[in-house]
């Protein structure tokens, strides 16, 4: 009998022993396993240091697994119809055993995933591990970020409460400012002119099937390319990677780290979900908009821009420029060899700090000036607002950024790579500042208020 069991086990593991003991069979075990073979069989020991990767990529995979498990559980108790959805949510929270916990886990994992994916991207960027040969994998990562955003956005509507309804209404309305095709796309997504029953089934289908499938397809591709392109190796400024860098087998060195990290993260997630409930407001009422009607938190940066720019610029031109920048970034040839070095060099570190400080200070200053001092459309009443509140302020901002670039290159004698890094930090800090202002400092009628 035990012979037969052994025979079955061997057929599953393709003849490999279940607990390989020597390096060679450990490497073979990785190669012959469907899931594990997304890993390399051996990795450079410094590459898997926690303080280099912060485990962020793995954490994103973990979160998506948690999201699938909890998401499927939620599907069993939820009907995507305006007549039932909100009631399902109340049921979930009061009647179904552990319903609130599962919903909390799903909600917080989804939100955490946006943060984790962004942090992962920043880690790769700040350690300069995005250039040749990893440019394309950066693009795959970027599409995973967009898909994560889309998953969150479509999921946001499903509870069908006031918060959900108006966040999606405001979010999709941004599309109408895309010239020519925007209104058609918006109509297509909503399945009509407004958020209604059709929108709910649309979003449900996208949320539970289309987006997860794409996410897992591209995620596998992303992991496989990471293996193919090789892990970047951390090093100190002024050092080169020695030929004899220690290489260790994935089993057990990487796998055990991943397992421990995952367990710690699951513990944190469970604790958080047990203590903090996902929000649920009153049932959606299409006739009454709340005041203020805010979009989802990750869109608050753009909504804040909307208060300062013509919608075409706030919702389309500036985000598209940002996205194009992120696509082009890995293809700009670096003139500093900084792969594996945090912020390139000593000067790079100072300039990154400078950019961040300038970004925060400049954004706060500009928001205050626009709110209390300067009203361009009023100053230039003869011009259409697309000029006075669009092209003109954008041109000024781009001019300021160009000045900043010249300052870095001229006064600080920065390499292009260092100047790009500093500029990126400035724009990132600016976007984060806008998001924080939008979330915490905007009250009734979108007026500036103290969050306390």
């Amino acid at each position, binding site marked *: 009998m035990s012979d037969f069991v052994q025979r079955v086990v061997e057929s599953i593991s393709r003849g490999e022993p279940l607990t390989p003991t020597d390096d060679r069979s450990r490497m073979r075990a990785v190669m012959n396993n469907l899931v594990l073979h997304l890993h390399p069989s051996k990795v450079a020991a410094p590459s898997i240091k926690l303080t280099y990767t912060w485990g962020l990529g793995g954490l994103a995979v973990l979160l998506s697994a948690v999201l699938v498990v909890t998401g499927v559980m939620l599907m069993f108790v939820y009907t995507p119809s305006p007549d039932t959805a909100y009631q399902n949510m109340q049921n979930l929270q009061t009647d179904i055993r552990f319903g609130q916990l599962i919903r909390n886990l799903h909600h917080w994992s989804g939100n955490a995933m946006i943060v984790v994916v962004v942090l992962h991207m920043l880690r790769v960027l700040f350690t300069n591990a995005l250039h040749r040969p990893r440019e394309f994998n950066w693009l795959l990562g970027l599409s995973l970020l967009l898909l994560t955003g889309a998953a969150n956005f479509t999921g946001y509507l499903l509870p069908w409460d006031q918060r959900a309804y*108006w966040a999606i*209404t405001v979010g999709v309305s941004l599309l109408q400012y895309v010239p020519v095709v925007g209104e058609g796309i918006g109509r*297509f997504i909503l399945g009509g*002119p407004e958020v209604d029953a059709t929108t709910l089934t649309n979003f449900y289908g996208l949320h539970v099937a289309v987006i997860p499938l794409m996410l897992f397809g591209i995620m596998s591709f992303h992991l496989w390319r990471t293996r193919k392109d090789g892990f970047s190796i951390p090093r100190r400024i002024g050092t080169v990677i020695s030929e004899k860098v220690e290489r260790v087998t994935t089993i057990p060195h990487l796998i055990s780290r991943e397992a421990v990290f995952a367990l710690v993260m699951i513990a944190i997630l469970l604790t958080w979900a047990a203590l903090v409930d996902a929000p649920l407001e009153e049932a959606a009422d*299409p006739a009454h908009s709340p005041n203020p009607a805010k979009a989802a938190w990750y869109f608050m940066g753009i909504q804040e821009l909307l208060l300062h720019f013509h*919608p075409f610029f706030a919702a389309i031109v500036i985000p598209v420029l940002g996205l194009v920048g992120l696509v082009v970034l890995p293809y700009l040839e670096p003139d500093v060899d900084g792969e594996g070095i945090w912020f390139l060099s000593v000067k790079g570190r100072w300039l990154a700090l400078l950019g961040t400080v300038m970004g925060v200070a400049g954004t706060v200053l500009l928001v205050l000036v626009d709110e209390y001092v300067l009203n361009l459309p009023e100053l230039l009443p003869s011009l259409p*607002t697309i000029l006075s509140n669009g092209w003109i302020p954008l041109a000024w901002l781009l001019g300021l950024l160009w000045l900043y670039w010249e300052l870095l290159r001229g006064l600080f004698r920065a390499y292009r790579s260092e100047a790009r890094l500093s500029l990126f930090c400035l724009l990132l800090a600016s976007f984060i500042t806008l998001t924080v202002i939008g979330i915490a400092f905007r009250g009734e*009628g979108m007026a500036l208020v103290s969050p306390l």
Partner: protein
Amino acid sequence: MKRRNFLKASWLGLLALAGGESAFIGLKFVSPHVDAGEFGGLFDVGAVDDFPSGSVTPFVNGRFYLVRLNDGGFLAVYRQCTHLGCSVPWNAEQQQFVCPCHGSAFERDGEVLNPPAPRPLDLFALTIKDGQIRVDTGKRIERDHADDRYVVYPEATA
């Protein structure tokens, strides 16, 4: 053309055709459509005399306000804010539409009193026949400025 190339081109053509058909079917399957009687269809809202001059009457199902201007003309004003799609309530005290989301304000005829709204409130096509008012919520009218072009007056009573 060689037979080999011809066959290759034919297969590629068929592949393109199959792809196109699938895309067309898929697109049509998920495209929105409107049934009569729902929002997006026709609404018979009542007789001209039911609405005094200067009145603003909400129609929740049709998602519009029936506005009778002081000069007796009618407009069907879509309740959706032209800024970011919030529902705009009529504020009877201030005699204007005020959007709760971002503070846009509109005149009775939909004209913008206060930005950020980029254009006046949209209208729905409105017709009056035999003293009965009919609003077509499938025909939305966007305006750059609220002029009297779209105001509908009841036919003179004999």
